[in-house]
């Protein structure tokens, strides 16, 4: 088990390196190949009507005049060993993992991501609980009552849930429950440490909106999984033993049907922790997703790199946890 984790972590580091190289290349190499020079790149980060001297200062500050491998090396060095940085009268040390300083605001990237993280975690975990409970139970009931009105209705809603984009369902829910019937007025993120009740109240709409999409997906997956599982021989055995139907469904059917869903759940959660971009934009939640949008809009390379790396990290970790969990659930899966 330990060797498994170590091996996976080494793979993860390698993967993150590859991701960083690709991100770096997309941002710097491709525009350079397309003919953009350092001054044109730097001009984006200087205010309107920049003098050539101002652009030159920005080029030097950002190190854009250095060869690309050197720039990449600086990035890596900062990430692993930290770096000294001056954006004012004094030099400050940016400890690892130092994702550098925003091209635009000259502020350190990592603390900003750290402060955005709780928002995304609050959103993702809350929604995950909702969709897992909702989606799975609807899926199970649908499968057990295949062809019933409940099945048809819930699968119809699920199809809508999968098809409707979040910025549509989100805006509708805001319009209805925040403005028309102000059950949840003035939705904005409140730190859980400041006011847990307000934190929860203000997250209800984002949770439900996000969960609606995933619950729909999970209901369909669970239904399909249950239909398949309930035809397995071991279900017949369980019934032949005289087990009550509830045990047959929950203990024998659901447990087997949930395993693949758990895998997908881990990946989904990992992805979401990297930023629920649409939900955060719709509900104005200052999480990693919004941070990502801003980073891209601002062409802020260190921020883009930061969120890409963090998102990749979450996905890798989620993947690993899923594998470990899978082994715990399914004794046939061996970890050596």
């Amino acid at each position, binding site marked *: 088990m330990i060797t498994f984790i170590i091996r996976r972590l080494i793979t993860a580091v390698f993967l993150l390196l590859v991701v960083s190289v690709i991100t770096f290349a*997309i*941002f710097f190499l491709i*525009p350079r190949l397309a003919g*953009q020079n350092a*001054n*044109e*790149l730097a*001009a*984006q*980060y*200087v*205010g*309107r*009507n*920049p*003098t050539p*001297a*101002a*652009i030159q*200062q*920005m080029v030097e*500050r950002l190190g854009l005049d250095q060869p690309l491998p050197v720039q990449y090396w600086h990035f890596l060095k900062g990430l692993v060993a930290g770096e000294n940085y*001056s*954006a*004012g*009268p*004094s030099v400050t040390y940016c400890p690892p993992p130092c994702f550098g*300083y925003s091209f*635009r*605001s*000259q*502020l350190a990237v990592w603390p*900003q991501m750290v*402060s*955005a993280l709780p928002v995304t975690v609050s959103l993702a975990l809350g929604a995950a609980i909702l969709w897992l409970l909702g989606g799975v139970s609807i899926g199970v009931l649908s499968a057990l009552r295949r062809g019933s009105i409940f099945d048809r209705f819930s699968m119809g809603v699920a199809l809508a849930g999968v098809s409707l984009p979040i*910025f549509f369902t989100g*805006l509708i829910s*805001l*319009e209805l429950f*925040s*403005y028309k019937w*102000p059950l949840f*007025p*003035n939705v*904005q*993120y409140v730190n859980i440490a400041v006011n847990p009740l307000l934190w929860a109240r203000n997250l209800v709409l984002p949770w439900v909106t996000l969960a609606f999409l995933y619950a729909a997906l999970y209901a369909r997956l669970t239904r399909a999984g249950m239909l398949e599982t309930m035809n397995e021989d071991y279900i017949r055995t369980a019934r032949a033993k005289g087990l009550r139907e509830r045990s047959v469904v929950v203990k024998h059917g659901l447990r087997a049907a949930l395993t693949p869903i758990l895998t997908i759940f881990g990946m989904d959660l990992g992805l979401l922790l990297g930023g629920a*971009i649409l939900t955060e*934009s*719709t*509900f*104005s939640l*200052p999480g990693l997703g*919004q941070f990502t*949008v*801003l980073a*891209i*809009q*601002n*062409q802020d390379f260190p921020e*883009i790199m930061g969120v890409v790396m963090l998102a990749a990290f979450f996905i890798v970790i989620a993947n690993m946890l899923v594998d470990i969990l899978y082994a715990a659930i399914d004794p046939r899966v061996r970890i050596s």
Partner: protein
Amino acid sequence: MTSMRRRKSLAISAGAAVAAVLLAACGGGATSSTGATSPTGGSTGGSTGGTTGNAVANAGVTGIANPSDHKGGTLTFASSSTPDSLDGGNEYYAWTLNFNRLYETPLLTYKSTTGGAGTQMVPGIATALGQVSPDGLTWTYHIKKGLKYEDGSAVTAGDVKYAVERTYDRGVLANGPSYFPQLLADPTYKGPYKDPNGDLTSITVPDPYTIQFHLVAPFPDFDYVVGAFGQTAPVPKAKDTGAKYELHPMSTGPYMFQSYQVNKQAVLVKNPNWTQNEDTEARQNVDKVILTLNVNADDIDNRLISGDLDVDSAGSGVQAAARAKVLGNPSLLRNSDNGFGNREWFIYLDSKVAPLTNVACRQAIEYAANKTDLQTAYGGPVAGGDIASTLLLPGMGGYSAFDLYNAKSQPTGDTTDAKKALTTCGQPNGFTTGLAYRSDRPKEVAGAQALQQALKAVGINVQLHGYPAGNYYGNFAGAPTFMHKNNIGIAFGGWAPDWPDGYGMMWALTSGNSIVPTGNANIGELNDPAVNKLFKDVANPKLTLDQRSAIYGQIDKLSMQQAVILPEVYAKVLIYRPPTLTNVYIDPAWGMYNYAVLGKSS
């Protein structure tokens, strides 16, 4: 050419986000500080604005809406985007400069009043407007005695000098304007961070309450340079933290920072060391000011209407969805203002791209354009603006409502005169040229198509070339060699003046000296000796304000005769104000509400 007021639509921030990762290669960000004056990109269509019969109440345009001396309450602002900075020395957006006056006070500032007088400079921390030496090269300001920062320490002239010095480090404070390095004598100075022992010798401080600026050439608008931005707001050297200073700028205004979480929220509370007597242009009406950042643009409008929010800080007006709601509802209209947004949208005609090298060919385009369709593209009369025929904005010194190309008398296009002009140009059957526009701005897309259609009627074929807004001025329309090489004679653009006079509006657009290889704003490449001479004349320190205004009027006419710019609209904004917001009026200096004097009635 910055986006002084920005709005991002949900669609852009949401849908384009993923694609933008890949577009990063092309520098395709939605906004950029080198981008030109930005449209209110949030609205998805232009046609909804002009179709109403209801009148906007405009209490905040014609006078002050809800005047009140009521004290107390919390004033809440929300922005759909990130500010360029909250550090006065690093700001260029109109709304951040406007907001800045709540906590920082430059030497001079705009007069807080309705009507045209609102564009005048009045003392901020200085005792009076600048005293200029007879040769026009030295400007002297005296600082009010007894002024204190929020921590009770004294404000000195040295702090003002330091505040200007630090803006020289464009690697750290990148966003502000470049007037000081351009106007003052030692351009090689790198700022106090890189050069701690250096000294900006062109600013002298003869005593702690006097500061002098030494210019290389006369510049009559220097009062605007020190007053229209936040760069002369004093910064105590001991408290300067460079890029981090925006997290807590030392307040000299009615409010001071309690907290600022980047990308999230700033909370301001009363500054105990501020006195109304020393600062006549700001008010301390409320107890607290909260600025929430990166709020969904449509949600901002909903919150305004529901009363959860007081001000959309961008000041660019409501989105298309809320616009329809407001215009269709008399009770909402009562609390709305539809005023000029201190901006003009126009189309450049490049005088260095054949056959537009011939002025008659440019004039043919001026005549042929369907101004009504262009107005509709920008949102119609309410959200778009009034059809324009000059460069100067209405109300600016020297403005006269001349109409060389019948924009107002024949708003759907004057094909007769256009064809005549084509004949004069030697292209009686028309010609072909390219047209550049920002493809991620729906209004410009609609405008480009409208112009293409109108020009086709007189035989001018236009090929559309869409570019990303982020690099539009850096790599495309603002790069003359690119325009020449690709035979692009027409480019969409817009301008909001750095300060509301003829220089701020027209110098960058029409002076031959303003043409630069990248980030060019004089895309028409007008290098007309007469215009250049007038810009030189207007700098004469002996001229009175009226005399200068007369010259700006001449420059406007000359430039329009040269037909390097086809005016579209004088931009207007439709702003909704909750009924509890007091002392509200559209400040002509900003084209949005004056944030320094707002209050709450409950």
